[in-house]
Protein backbone atom coordinates (compact mmCIF):
# COMPACT_ATOMS: atom_id res chain seq x y z
CA UNK A 1 0.00 0.00 0.00
CA UNK A 2 2.59 2.55 1.11
CA UNK A 3 5.05 1.25 -1.44
CA UNK A 4 2.53 1.75 -4.25
CA UNK A 5 2.01 5.35 -3.30
CA UNK A 6 5.74 6.06 -3.25
CA UNK A 7 6.30 4.64 -6.71
CA UNK A 8 3.37 6.60 -8.13
CA UNK A 9 4.90 9.72 -6.69
CA UNK A 10 8.31 8.99 -8.11
CA UNK A 11 6.82 8.43 -11.57
CA UNK A 12 5.22 11.87 -11.51
CA UNK A 13 8.52 13.32 -10.29
CA UNK A 14 10.22 11.62 -13.22
CA UNK A 15 7.66 12.98 -15.69
CA UNK A 16 8.14 16.46 -14.23
CA UNK A 17 11.89 16.00 -14.46
CA UNK A 18 11.57 15.19 -18.18
CA UNK A 19 9.42 18.23 -18.81
CA UNK A 20 11.89 20.29 -16.81
CA UNK A 21 14.85 19.18 -18.95
CA UNK A 22 12.91 19.62 -22.17
CA UNK A 23 11.92 23.17 -21.22
CA UNK A 24 15.51 23.84 -20.14
CA UNK A 25 16.80 22.72 -23.55
CA UNK A 26 14.10 24.69 -25.40
CA UNK A 27 15.02 27.70 -23.30
CA UNK A 28 18.68 27.33 -24.18
CA UNK A 29 17.91 27.05 -27.91
CA UNK A 30 15.71 30.14 -27.83
CA UNK A 31 18.24 31.91 -25.62
CA UNK A 32 21.07 31.20 -28.07
CA UNK A 33 19.16 32.77 -30.93
CA UNK A 34 18.14 35.78 -28.81
CA UNK A 35 21.71 36.17 -27.58
CA UNK A 36 22.99 36.39 -31.16
CA UNK A 37 20.40 39.07 -31.94
CA UNK A 38 21.03 40.91 -28.68
CA UNK A 39 24.83 40.87 -28.91
CA UNK A 40 24.84 42.58 -32.31
CA UNK A 41 22.21 45.05 -31.14
CA UNK A 42 24.14 45.79 -27.97
CA UNK A 43 27.46 46.18 -29.83
CA UNK A 44 25.81 48.78 -32.06
CA UNK A 45 24.08 50.45 -29.12
CA UNK A 46 27.21 50.76 -27.02
CA UNK A 47 29.18 52.72 -29.61
CA UNK A 48 26.27 54.54 -31.28
CA UNK A 49 24.02 55.21 -28.26
CA UNK A 50 20.68 54.68 -29.93
CA UNK A 51 18.21 51.85 -30.39
CA UNK A 52 18.86 50.33 -33.79
CA UNK A 53 15.40 48.80 -34.16
CA UNK A 54 16.01 47.99 -37.85
CA UNK A 55 18.47 45.34 -36.65
CA UNK A 56 15.46 43.04 -37.01
CA UNK A 57 15.19 44.12 -40.64
CA UNK A 58 18.81 43.07 -41.16
CA UNK A 59 17.87 39.58 -39.96
CA UNK A 60 14.86 39.35 -42.28
CA UNK A 61 16.81 40.59 -45.30
CA UNK A 62 19.73 38.25 -44.52
CA UNK A 63 17.41 35.25 -44.33
CA UNK A 64 16.01 36.10 -47.76
CA UNK A 65 19.51 36.68 -49.14
CA UNK A 66 20.42 33.18 -47.97
CA UNK A 67 17.25 31.85 -49.58
CA UNK A 68 18.13 33.60 -52.83
CA UNK A 69 21.73 32.35 -52.98
CA UNK A 70 20.96 28.82 -51.86
CA UNK A 71 17.57 27.98 -53.36
CA UNK A 72 17.09 30.38 -56.24
CA UNK A 73 20.70 30.67 -57.48
CA UNK A 74 21.47 27.09 -56.49
CA UNK A 75 24.81 27.81 -54.84
CA UNK A 76 26.50 25.54 -52.34
CA UNK A 77 25.00 26.03 -48.87
CA UNK A 78 28.21 26.97 -47.07
CA UNK A 79 29.19 29.42 -49.80
CA UNK A 80 25.69 30.95 -49.60
CA UNK A 81 26.04 31.21 -45.83
CA UNK A 82 29.35 33.07 -46.12
CA UNK A 83 27.91 35.40 -48.75
CA UNK A 84 24.92 36.04 -46.46
CA UNK A 85 27.11 37.08 -43.55
CA UNK A 86 29.13 39.40 -45.82
CA UNK A 87 25.95 40.94 -47.31
CA UNK A 88 24.54 41.49 -43.82
CA UNK A 89 27.69 43.38 -42.86
CA UNK A 90 27.45 45.53 -45.99
CA UNK A 91 23.75 46.19 -45.33
CA UNK A 92 24.59 47.31 -41.79
CA UNK A 93 27.25 49.66 -43.08
CA UNK A 94 24.86 51.14 -45.65
CA UNK A 95 22.23 51.82 -42.98
CA UNK A 96 24.86 53.63 -40.96
CA UNK A 97 26.28 55.61 -43.87
CA UNK A 98 23.07 56.48 -45.73
CA UNK A 99 20.58 57.03 -42.89
CA UNK A 100 22.12 57.35 -39.44
CA UNK A 101 25.24 59.37 -40.23
CA UNK A 102 23.36 62.19 -42.00
CA UNK A 103 20.77 62.25 -39.19
CA UNK A 104 23.53 62.42 -36.61
CA UNK A 105 25.21 65.26 -38.48
CA UNK A 106 22.00 67.26 -38.11
CA UNK A 107 22.29 66.72 -34.37
CA UNK A 108 19.28 64.39 -34.14
CA UNK A 109 18.52 62.94 -30.73
CA UNK A 110 18.30 59.27 -29.87
CA UNK A 111 14.51 59.47 -30.06
CA UNK A 112 14.62 60.66 -33.68
CA UNK A 113 17.10 57.94 -34.59
CA UNK A 114 14.75 55.41 -32.97
CA UNK A 115 11.79 56.64 -35.03
CA UNK A 116 13.87 56.60 -38.22
CA UNK A 117 14.93 53.09 -37.32
CA UNK A 118 11.33 51.95 -36.83
CA UNK A 119 10.55 53.41 -40.27
CA UNK A 120 13.52 51.58 -41.78
CA UNK A 121 12.39 48.33 -40.16
CA UNK A 122 8.93 48.65 -41.75
CA UNK A 123 10.52 49.59 -45.08
CA UNK A 124 12.72 46.47 -45.15
CA UNK A 125 9.94 44.18 -43.97
CA UNK A 126 7.58 45.36 -46.69
CA UNK A 127 10.30 45.28 -49.33
CA UNK A 128 10.78 41.58 -48.61
CA UNK A 129 7.01 41.09 -48.56
CA UNK A 130 6.77 42.73 -51.99
CA UNK A 131 9.63 40.77 -53.58
CA UNK A 132 9.09 37.32 -52.07
CA UNK A 133 5.41 37.34 -51.11
CA UNK A 134 3.77 36.72 -47.75
CA UNK A 135 3.95 32.93 -47.84
CA UNK A 136 6.30 31.10 -45.53
CA UNK A 137 9.50 29.84 -47.18
CA UNK A 138 11.71 27.04 -46.02
CA UNK A 139 15.34 26.25 -46.82
CA UNK A 140 14.99 22.45 -46.55
CA UNK A 141 18.76 22.07 -46.36
CA UNK A 142 18.76 19.65 -43.47
CA UNK A 143 16.42 16.70 -43.63
CA UNK A 144 14.28 16.44 -40.56
CA UNK A 145 16.38 14.25 -38.33
CA UNK A 146 15.19 12.11 -35.49
CA UNK A 147 15.91 13.89 -32.24
CA UNK A 148 18.39 12.51 -29.77
CA UNK A 149 17.25 11.76 -26.28
CA UNK A 150 19.07 13.38 -23.42
CA UNK A 151 17.68 12.48 -19.99
CA UNK A 152 14.27 11.97 -21.54
CA UNK A 153 14.25 15.28 -23.44
CA UNK A 154 14.42 15.48 -27.22
CA UNK A 155 16.95 17.62 -29.07
CA UNK A 156 17.69 17.49 -32.80
CA UNK A 157 21.28 17.62 -34.10
CA UNK A 158 20.56 21.01 -35.67
CA UNK A 159 19.43 22.42 -32.34
CA UNK A 160 22.64 21.15 -30.78
CA UNK A 161 24.57 22.90 -33.56
CA UNK A 162 22.63 26.11 -32.85
CA UNK A 163 23.51 26.07 -29.17
CA UNK A 164 27.17 25.15 -29.69
CA UNK A 165 27.85 27.57 -32.56
CA UNK A 166 26.14 30.43 -30.73
CA UNK A 167 28.12 29.81 -27.58
CA UNK A 168 31.39 29.62 -29.56
CA UNK A 169 30.59 32.80 -31.48
CA UNK A 170 29.50 34.67 -28.36
CA UNK A 171 32.62 33.67 -26.44
CA UNK A 172 34.72 34.65 -29.45
CA UNK A 173 32.99 38.01 -29.54
CA UNK A 174 33.47 38.63 -25.84
CA UNK A 175 37.19 37.93 -26.33
CA UNK A 176 37.30 40.18 -29.36
CA UNK A 177 35.76 43.09 -27.46
CA UNK A 178 37.95 42.48 -24.41
CA UNK A 179 41.31 41.65 -25.98
CA UNK A 180 41.67 42.91 -29.56
CA UNK A 181 42.83 46.38 -30.56
CA UNK A 182 39.60 47.18 -32.40
CA UNK A 183 37.59 45.80 -29.50
CA UNK A 184 39.27 48.03 -26.96
CA UNK A 185 38.87 51.02 -29.28
CA UNK A 186 35.17 50.22 -29.43
CA UNK A 187 35.00 50.11 -25.67
CA UNK A 188 36.76 53.45 -25.53
CA UNK A 189 34.15 54.98 -27.84
CA UNK A 190 31.37 53.36 -25.82
CA UNK A 191 32.74 54.73 -22.55
CA UNK A 192 33.35 58.27 -23.64
CA UNK A 193 32.95 59.31 -27.28
CA UNK A 194 34.34 62.84 -26.76
CA UNK A 195 37.46 61.63 -25.01
CA UNK A 196 37.99 58.94 -27.65
CA UNK A 197 37.70 61.55 -30.38
CA UNK A 198 40.28 63.76 -28.64
CA UNK A 199 42.67 60.82 -28.34
CA UNK A 200 42.68 60.54 -32.12
CA UNK A 201 40.08 57.77 -32.54
CA UNK A 202 37.71 58.36 -35.44
CA UNK A 203 34.41 57.85 -33.64
CA UNK A 204 32.31 57.64 -36.78
CA UNK A 205 34.64 55.00 -38.24
CA UNK A 206 34.33 52.88 -35.10
CA UNK A 207 30.57 53.36 -35.11
CA UNK A 208 30.52 52.15 -38.71
CA UNK A 209 32.66 49.16 -37.76
CA UNK A 210 30.24 48.17 -35.01
CA UNK A 211 27.43 48.32 -37.55
CA UNK A 212 29.37 45.99 -39.85
CA UNK A 213 30.23 43.48 -37.11
CA UNK A 214 26.85 43.67 -35.35
CA UNK A 215 24.97 43.18 -38.61
CA UNK A 216 27.23 40.31 -39.69
CA UNK A 217 26.29 38.55 -36.44
CA UNK A 218 22.65 39.23 -37.30
CA UNK A 219 23.35 37.57 -40.66
CA UNK A 220 24.76 34.55 -38.84
CA UNK A 221 21.67 34.45 -36.61
CA UNK A 222 19.48 34.60 -39.71
CA UNK A 223 21.19 31.48 -41.10
CA UNK A 224 20.54 29.48 -37.93
CA UNK A 225 16.94 30.69 -37.70
CA UNK A 226 16.41 29.97 -41.40
CA UNK A 227 17.55 26.40 -40.84
CA UNK A 228 15.57 25.81 -37.66
CA UNK A 229 12.36 27.67 -38.49
CA UNK A 230 10.77 29.14 -41.57
CA UNK A 231 11.56 32.34 -43.39
CA UNK A 232 8.83 34.98 -43.50
CA UNK A 233 8.76 38.78 -43.76
CA UNK A 234 7.59 39.32 -40.18
CA UNK A 235 10.32 37.21 -38.57
CA UNK A 236 12.65 40.15 -37.92
CA UNK A 237 10.17 42.17 -35.87
CA UNK A 238 9.53 39.49 -33.27
CA UNK A 239 13.23 38.64 -33.12
CA UNK A 240 14.37 42.20 -32.55
CA UNK A 241 11.80 42.59 -29.79
CA UNK A 242 13.21 39.45 -28.16
CA UNK A 243 16.76 40.57 -28.81
CA UNK A 244 16.40 43.93 -27.23
CA UNK A 245 14.31 42.61 -24.38
CA UNK A 246 17.26 40.31 -23.65
CA UNK A 247 19.67 43.21 -24.00
CA UNK A 248 17.62 45.46 -21.70
CA UNK A 249 17.24 42.72 -19.08
CA UNK A 250 21.00 42.21 -18.90
CA UNK A 251 22.03 45.82 -19.42
CA UNK A 252 22.12 47.05 -22.98
CA UNK A 253 25.55 48.66 -22.95
CA UNK A 254 27.27 45.49 -21.80
CA UNK A 255 27.90 42.63 -24.20
CA UNK A 256 28.11 39.88 -21.54
CA UNK A 257 25.10 41.43 -19.80
CA UNK A 258 22.93 41.27 -22.89
CA UNK A 259 24.01 37.69 -23.59
CA UNK A 260 23.08 36.57 -20.07
CA UNK A 261 19.83 38.57 -20.32
CA UNK A 262 18.92 36.80 -23.56
CA UNK A 263 19.47 33.34 -22.11
CA UNK A 264 17.38 34.36 -19.09
CA UNK A 265 14.62 35.54 -21.42
CA UNK A 266 14.72 32.26 -23.36
CA UNK A 267 14.44 30.28 -20.15
CA UNK A 268 11.73 32.44 -18.56
CA UNK A 269 9.65 32.29 -21.75
CA UNK A 270 9.86 28.53 -21.97
CA UNK A 271 9.33 27.84 -18.29
CA UNK A 272 6.50 30.37 -18.36
CA UNK A 273 4.42 28.11 -20.60
CA UNK A 274 4.46 25.55 -17.82
CA UNK A 275 1.87 27.82 -16.20
CA UNK A 276 0.47 29.85 -19.08
CA UNK A 277 -0.94 28.85 -22.49
CA UNK A 278 1.86 28.77 -25.07
CA UNK A 279 0.30 31.69 -26.96
CA UNK A 280 1.49 33.91 -24.15
CA UNK A 281 5.17 33.24 -24.93
CA UNK A 282 5.52 36.57 -26.74
CA UNK A 283 3.46 38.40 -24.14
CA UNK A 284 5.90 37.27 -21.44
CA UNK A 285 8.79 38.98 -23.17
CA UNK A 286 6.77 42.13 -23.94
CA UNK A 287 5.82 42.42 -20.30
CA UNK A 288 9.42 41.81 -19.19
CA UNK A 289 10.63 44.49 -21.62
CA UNK A 290 8.09 46.96 -20.28
CA UNK A 291 8.79 46.14 -16.63
CA UNK A 292 12.55 46.47 -17.04
CA UNK A 293 12.27 49.73 -18.96
CA UNK A 294 10.13 51.18 -16.21
CA UNK A 295 11.87 49.98 -13.10
CA UNK A 296 15.36 49.02 -14.09
CA UNK A 297 16.41 50.44 -17.46
CA UNK A 298 20.03 49.68 -16.62
CA UNK A 299 19.33 45.94 -16.50
CA UNK A 300 19.85 43.43 -13.72
CA UNK A 301 23.56 44.08 -13.63
CA UNK A 302 22.88 47.77 -13.20
CA UNK A 303 25.46 48.77 -15.76
CA UNK A 304 24.91 52.45 -16.22
CA UNK A 305 26.63 54.16 -19.11
CA UNK A 306 24.71 57.24 -20.01
CA UNK A 307 21.28 55.63 -19.75
CA UNK A 308 20.28 57.66 -16.74
CA UNK A 309 21.59 61.14 -16.56
Amino acid at each position, binding site marked *: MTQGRISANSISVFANMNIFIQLLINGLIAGSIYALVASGFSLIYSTNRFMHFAHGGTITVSAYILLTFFKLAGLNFYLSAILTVISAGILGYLMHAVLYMPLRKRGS*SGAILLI*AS*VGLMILLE*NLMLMIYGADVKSLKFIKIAKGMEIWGAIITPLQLVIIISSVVLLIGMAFFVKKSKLGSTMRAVADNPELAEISGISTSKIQGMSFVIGSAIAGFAAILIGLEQNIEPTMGLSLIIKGFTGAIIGGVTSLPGSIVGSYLLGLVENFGIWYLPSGYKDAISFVLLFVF*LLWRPTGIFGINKGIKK
Partner: protein
Amino acid sequence: MLTGYLYNILIFSGIYAILTVSLNMAVGFTGLLNLGHVAFFGIGAYTSTLLTMNGVPYIVSLIVAGLVSSVFGVILMYAVRKLKGDYLALATLGFSFVVYSVMLNWSSLTRGPLGIPGIPKPELFGWTINTTSEYLVFTLIVATVSIYIINRITTSRYGKLLEAVRDDEVGLSVYGKPIFSLKVRSLAISAFFAGIAGSLFAHHITFIDPSSFYINDLVLLLTIVLVGGLANNKGVIIATVIIMLIPEALRFVDMPSSILGPARQMIYAIVLIGILLFKPRGLFGRIDLE
Protein backbone atom coordinates in the same frame (compact mmCIF):
# COMPACT_ATOMS: atom_id res chain seq x y z
CA MET B 1 -19.05 53.24 -57.48
CA LEU B 2 -16.54 56.06 -57.70
CA THR B 3 -18.41 58.18 -55.17
CA GLY B 4 -18.48 55.25 -52.75
CA TYR B 5 -14.74 54.93 -53.16
CA LEU B 6 -14.24 58.64 -52.60
CA TYR B 7 -16.49 58.57 -49.53
CA ASN B 8 -14.40 55.74 -48.11
CA ILE B 9 -11.20 57.73 -48.47
CA LEU B 10 -12.87 60.68 -46.78
CA ILE B 11 -14.14 58.53 -43.92
CA PHE B 12 -10.65 57.17 -43.32
CA SER B 13 -9.23 60.68 -43.57
CA GLY B 14 -11.71 61.80 -40.90
CA ILE B 15 -10.80 58.93 -38.58
CA TYR B 16 -7.08 59.45 -39.08
CA ALA B 17 -7.43 63.20 -38.63
CA ILE B 18 -8.81 62.57 -35.12
CA LEU B 19 -5.97 60.13 -34.45
CA THR B 20 -3.19 62.37 -35.67
CA VAL B 21 -4.45 65.61 -34.18
CA SER B 22 -4.81 63.87 -30.82
CA LEU B 23 -1.33 62.33 -31.18
CA ASN B 24 -0.01 65.78 -32.01
CA MET B 25 -1.43 67.07 -28.74
CA ALA B 26 0.80 64.65 -26.80
CA VAL B 27 3.87 64.63 -29.04
CA GLY B 28 3.83 68.09 -30.56
CA PHE B 29 2.34 70.25 -27.85
CA THR B 30 3.30 68.47 -24.64
CA GLY B 31 6.53 66.93 -25.95
CA LEU B 32 5.66 63.38 -24.84
CA LEU B 33 7.08 61.10 -27.51
CA ASN B 34 4.27 58.57 -27.28
CA LEU B 35 4.62 55.50 -29.52
CA GLY B 36 1.63 53.87 -27.83
CA HIS B 37 -1.07 55.76 -29.67
CA VAL B 38 -2.06 52.76 -31.82
CA ALA B 39 -2.70 50.84 -28.61
CA PHE B 40 -5.28 53.46 -27.50
CA PHE B 41 -6.80 53.27 -30.98
CA GLY B 42 -7.08 49.48 -30.63
CA ILE B 43 -8.43 49.61 -27.06
CA GLY B 44 -11.16 52.01 -28.24
CA ALA B 45 -12.04 49.80 -31.19
CA TYR B 46 -12.30 46.63 -29.09
CA THR B 47 -14.18 48.34 -26.24
CA SER B 48 -16.79 49.81 -28.55
CA THR B 49 -17.16 46.56 -30.51
CA LEU B 50 -17.59 44.37 -27.45
CA LEU B 51 -20.05 46.77 -25.83
CA THR B 52 -22.34 47.19 -28.84
CA MET B 53 -22.27 43.46 -29.55
CA ASN B 54 -23.50 42.93 -26.00
CA GLY B 55 -26.44 45.24 -26.46
CA VAL B 56 -25.10 48.53 -25.15
CA PRO B 57 -26.43 51.52 -27.15
CA TYR B 58 -23.91 52.89 -29.65
CA ILE B 59 -23.62 56.39 -28.24
CA VAL B 60 -22.73 54.96 -24.81
CA SER B 61 -20.18 52.57 -26.36
CA LEU B 62 -18.55 55.42 -28.25
CA ILE B 63 -18.06 57.50 -25.11
CA VAL B 64 -16.98 54.52 -23.00
CA ALA B 65 -14.45 53.56 -25.71
CA GLY B 66 -12.89 56.98 -25.29
CA LEU B 67 -12.99 56.77 -21.51
CA VAL B 68 -11.40 53.31 -21.33
CA SER B 69 -8.57 54.42 -23.64
CA SER B 70 -8.21 57.51 -21.51
CA VAL B 71 -7.83 55.41 -18.34
CA PHE B 72 -5.05 53.45 -20.05
CA GLY B 73 -3.46 56.77 -20.99
CA VAL B 74 -3.39 57.77 -17.32
CA ILE B 75 -1.96 54.37 -16.32
CA LEU B 76 0.71 54.58 -19.02
CA MET B 77 1.71 58.08 -17.97
CA TYR B 78 2.00 57.01 -14.34
CA ALA B 79 4.14 54.07 -15.40
CA VAL B 80 6.57 56.02 -17.59
CA ARG B 81 6.75 59.16 -15.46
CA LYS B 82 10.48 58.81 -14.79
CA LEU B 83 11.54 58.19 -18.39
CA LYS B 84 12.66 60.69 -20.99
CA GLY B 85 13.72 60.81 -24.63
CA ASP B 86 14.35 57.52 -26.36
CA TYR B 87 13.61 55.48 -23.23
CA LEU B 88 10.16 57.07 -23.01
CA ALA B 89 9.66 56.30 -26.71
CA LEU B 90 10.79 52.72 -26.23
CA ALA B 91 8.60 52.13 -23.17
CA THR B 92 5.51 53.46 -24.94
CA LEU B 93 6.41 51.28 -27.92
CA GLY B 94 6.62 48.39 -25.46
CA PHE B 95 3.12 49.34 -24.26
CA SER B 96 1.90 48.94 -27.87
CA PHE B 97 3.46 45.48 -27.99
CA VAL B 98 1.87 44.44 -24.69
CA VAL B 99 -1.61 45.61 -25.76
CA TYR B 100 -1.17 43.91 -29.13
CA SER B 101 -0.23 40.60 -27.59
CA VAL B 102 -3.12 40.78 -25.13
CA MET B 103 -5.53 41.36 -28.06
CA LEU B 104 -3.92 38.43 -29.82
CA ASN B 105 -3.97 36.03 -26.89
CA TRP B 106 -7.06 36.84 -24.85
CA SER B 107 -9.08 34.73 -27.24
CA SER B 108 -12.14 34.32 -25.04
CA LEU B 109 -12.67 38.07 -25.24
CA THR B 110 -11.17 39.18 -28.56
CA ARG B 111 -11.25 35.93 -30.60
CA GLY B 112 -7.49 36.43 -30.99
CA PRO B 113 -6.03 36.50 -34.51
CA LEU B 114 -9.40 35.51 -36.03
CA GLY B 115 -10.72 38.97 -35.25
CA ILE B 116 -14.33 39.98 -34.66
CA PRO B 117 -16.56 40.09 -37.75
CA GLY B 118 -20.09 41.42 -38.10
CA ILE B 119 -19.73 44.54 -35.98
CA PRO B 120 -23.12 46.32 -36.10
CA LYS B 121 -23.48 49.70 -37.80
CA PRO B 122 -24.06 52.53 -35.32
CA GLU B 123 -27.59 53.34 -34.25
CA LEU B 124 -28.19 56.81 -32.87
CA PHE B 125 -31.56 57.76 -31.41
CA GLY B 126 -33.36 55.53 -33.90
CA TRP B 127 -31.17 56.57 -36.85
CA THR B 128 -29.26 53.55 -38.17
CA ILE B 129 -26.22 54.60 -40.09
CA ASN B 130 -26.22 52.13 -42.94
CA THR B 131 -24.97 53.73 -46.12
CA THR B 132 -21.47 54.99 -46.77
CA SER B 133 -22.69 58.54 -47.29
CA GLU B 134 -24.48 58.55 -43.95
CA TYR B 135 -21.37 57.18 -42.27
CA LEU B 136 -19.34 59.93 -43.91
CA VAL B 137 -21.65 62.59 -42.47
CA PHE B 138 -21.46 60.93 -39.05
CA THR B 139 -17.63 60.64 -39.18
CA LEU B 140 -17.25 64.25 -40.25
CA ILE B 141 -19.47 65.43 -37.39
CA VAL B 142 -17.52 63.44 -34.80
CA ALA B 143 -14.18 64.47 -36.35
CA THR B 144 -15.13 68.14 -36.44
CA VAL B 145 -16.28 68.14 -32.84
CA SER B 146 -13.21 66.21 -31.65
CA ILE B 147 -10.73 68.37 -33.53
CA TYR B 148 -12.55 71.53 -32.43
CA ILE B 149 -12.21 70.48 -28.79
CA ILE B 150 -8.53 69.56 -29.13
CA ASN B 151 -7.85 72.79 -31.00
CA ARG B 152 -9.63 74.82 -28.31
CA ILE B 153 -7.46 73.17 -25.67
CA THR B 154 -4.18 73.61 -27.52
CA THR B 155 -4.78 77.23 -28.45
CA SER B 156 -5.99 78.20 -24.98
CA ARG B 157 -3.92 79.34 -22.03
CA TYR B 158 -3.88 75.72 -20.95
CA GLY B 159 -2.30 74.81 -24.29
CA LYS B 160 0.43 77.33 -23.64
CA LEU B 161 1.11 75.57 -20.34
CA LEU B 162 1.43 72.26 -22.20
CA GLU B 163 3.91 73.85 -24.58
CA ALA B 164 5.82 75.16 -21.61
CA VAL B 165 6.05 71.59 -20.28
CA ARG B 166 7.63 70.64 -23.59
CA ASP B 167 10.03 73.57 -23.77
CA ASP B 168 11.18 74.08 -20.23
CA GLU B 169 10.04 71.81 -17.43
CA VAL B 170 12.37 73.26 -14.84
CA GLY B 171 11.41 76.81 -15.70
CA LEU B 172 7.74 75.96 -15.41
CA SER B 173 8.14 74.20 -12.08
CA VAL B 174 9.63 77.42 -10.70
CA TYR B 175 6.17 78.95 -11.18
CA GLY B 176 4.69 76.13 -9.13
CA LYS B 177 2.86 74.53 -12.04
CA PRO B 178 1.98 70.85 -11.62
CA ILE B 179 4.05 69.42 -14.48
CA PHE B 180 3.24 65.77 -13.97
CA SER B 181 -0.48 66.40 -13.71
CA LEU B 182 -0.35 68.46 -16.93
CA LYS B 183 1.35 65.53 -18.66
CA VAL B 184 -1.20 63.04 -17.32
CA ARG B 185 -4.13 65.16 -18.45
CA SER B 186 -2.61 65.74 -21.86
CA LEU B 187 -2.07 62.03 -22.46
CA ALA B 188 -5.53 61.21 -21.07
CA ILE B 189 -7.22 63.62 -23.49
CA SER B 190 -5.05 62.41 -26.37
CA ALA B 191 -5.92 58.78 -25.60
CA PHE B 192 -9.62 59.61 -25.22
CA PHE B 193 -9.86 60.82 -28.81
CA ALA B 194 -7.77 57.90 -30.06
CA GLY B 195 -10.40 55.66 -28.47
CA ILE B 196 -13.20 57.59 -30.20
CA ALA B 197 -11.36 57.14 -33.52
CA GLY B 198 -11.04 53.42 -32.75
CA SER B 199 -14.80 53.15 -32.32
CA LEU B 200 -15.45 54.96 -35.62
CA PHE B 201 -12.95 52.67 -37.35
CA ALA B 202 -14.43 49.44 -35.98
CA HIS B 203 -18.02 50.25 -36.84
CA HIS B 204 -17.07 51.44 -40.31
CA ILE B 205 -15.17 48.40 -41.54
CA THR B 206 -17.31 46.11 -39.32
CA PHE B 207 -14.36 43.78 -38.74
CA ILE B 208 -11.38 44.18 -36.41
CA ASP B 209 -8.36 42.06 -35.68
CA PRO B 210 -5.17 42.85 -33.72
CA SER B 211 -3.08 43.45 -36.86
CA SER B 212 -4.93 46.72 -37.52
CA PHE B 213 -3.46 48.18 -34.34
CA TYR B 214 0.20 47.41 -34.67
CA ILE B 215 3.46 48.88 -35.76
CA ASN B 216 2.45 49.47 -39.41
CA ASP B 217 -0.29 51.86 -38.34
CA LEU B 218 2.01 53.45 -35.81
CA VAL B 219 4.43 54.33 -38.61
CA LEU B 220 1.55 55.82 -40.60
CA LEU B 221 0.47 58.02 -37.66
CA LEU B 222 4.02 59.21 -36.98
CA THR B 223 4.54 59.93 -40.66
CA ILE B 224 1.42 62.10 -40.83
CA VAL B 225 2.24 64.06 -37.68
CA LEU B 226 5.83 64.67 -38.74
CA VAL B 227 4.85 65.64 -42.28
CA GLY B 228 2.21 68.05 -41.01
CA GLY B 229 4.56 69.50 -38.46
CA LEU B 230 4.65 69.18 -34.70
CA ALA B 231 2.36 71.45 -32.72
CA ASN B 232 0.39 72.53 -35.77
CA ASN B 233 -3.15 71.14 -35.93
CA LYS B 234 -3.99 72.62 -39.31
CA GLY B 235 -0.78 71.23 -40.82
CA VAL B 236 -1.52 67.79 -39.44
CA ILE B 237 -5.05 67.77 -40.91
CA ILE B 238 -3.72 68.77 -44.33
CA ALA B 239 -0.99 66.13 -44.05
CA THR B 240 -3.61 63.49 -43.15
CA VAL B 241 -5.50 64.11 -46.37
CA ILE B 242 -2.31 64.21 -48.45
CA ILE B 243 -0.85 61.03 -46.96
CA MET B 244 -4.18 59.21 -47.27
CA LEU B 245 -4.41 60.20 -50.92
CA ILE B 246 -0.83 59.42 -52.07
CA PRO B 247 -1.10 55.62 -52.04
CA GLU B 248 -4.50 55.83 -53.73
CA ALA B 249 -2.65 56.85 -56.89
CA LEU B 250 -1.22 53.32 -56.85
CA ARG B 251 -4.69 51.91 -57.30
CA PHE B 252 -4.90 53.30 -60.80
CA VAL B 253 -1.68 51.58 -61.76
CA ASP B 254 -2.41 47.99 -62.63
CA MET B 255 -0.99 46.18 -59.62
CA PRO B 256 -1.95 42.99 -57.84
CA SER B 257 -3.13 43.55 -54.27
CA SER B 258 -0.25 41.45 -52.92
CA ILE B 259 2.10 44.20 -54.10
CA LEU B 260 -0.23 47.11 -53.38
CA GLY B 261 -0.32 46.59 -49.59
CA PRO B 262 3.46 46.44 -49.07
CA ALA B 263 3.98 49.26 -51.58
CA ARG B 264 1.69 51.50 -49.56
CA GLN B 265 3.55 50.73 -46.32
CA MET B 266 6.87 51.37 -48.05
CA ILE B 267 5.69 54.77 -49.20
CA TYR B 268 4.76 55.71 -45.63
CA ALA B 269 8.12 54.51 -44.33
CA ILE B 270 10.06 56.33 -47.06
CA VAL B 271 8.13 59.55 -46.42
CA LEU B 272 8.85 59.19 -42.69
CA ILE B 273 12.58 58.67 -43.21
CA GLY B 274 12.72 61.38 -45.88
CA ILE B 275 11.05 63.96 -43.67
CA LEU B 276 13.42 63.19 -40.78
CA LEU B 277 16.41 63.49 -43.10
CA PHE B 278 15.49 66.50 -45.19
CA LYS B 279 12.74 68.49 -43.54
CA PRO B 280 12.52 67.61 -39.84
CA ARG B 281 10.01 70.40 -39.17
CA GLY B 282 7.59 68.96 -41.68
CA LEU B 283 5.53 71.11 -44.01
CA PHE B 284 4.10 73.48 -41.43
CA GLY B 285 5.92 72.66 -38.20
CA ARG B 286 6.90 75.25 -35.65
CA ILE B 287 9.24 73.21 -33.49
CA ASP B 288 11.85 70.49 -33.79
CA LEU B 289 11.40 67.01 -32.47
CA GLU B 290 13.57 66.67 -29.40
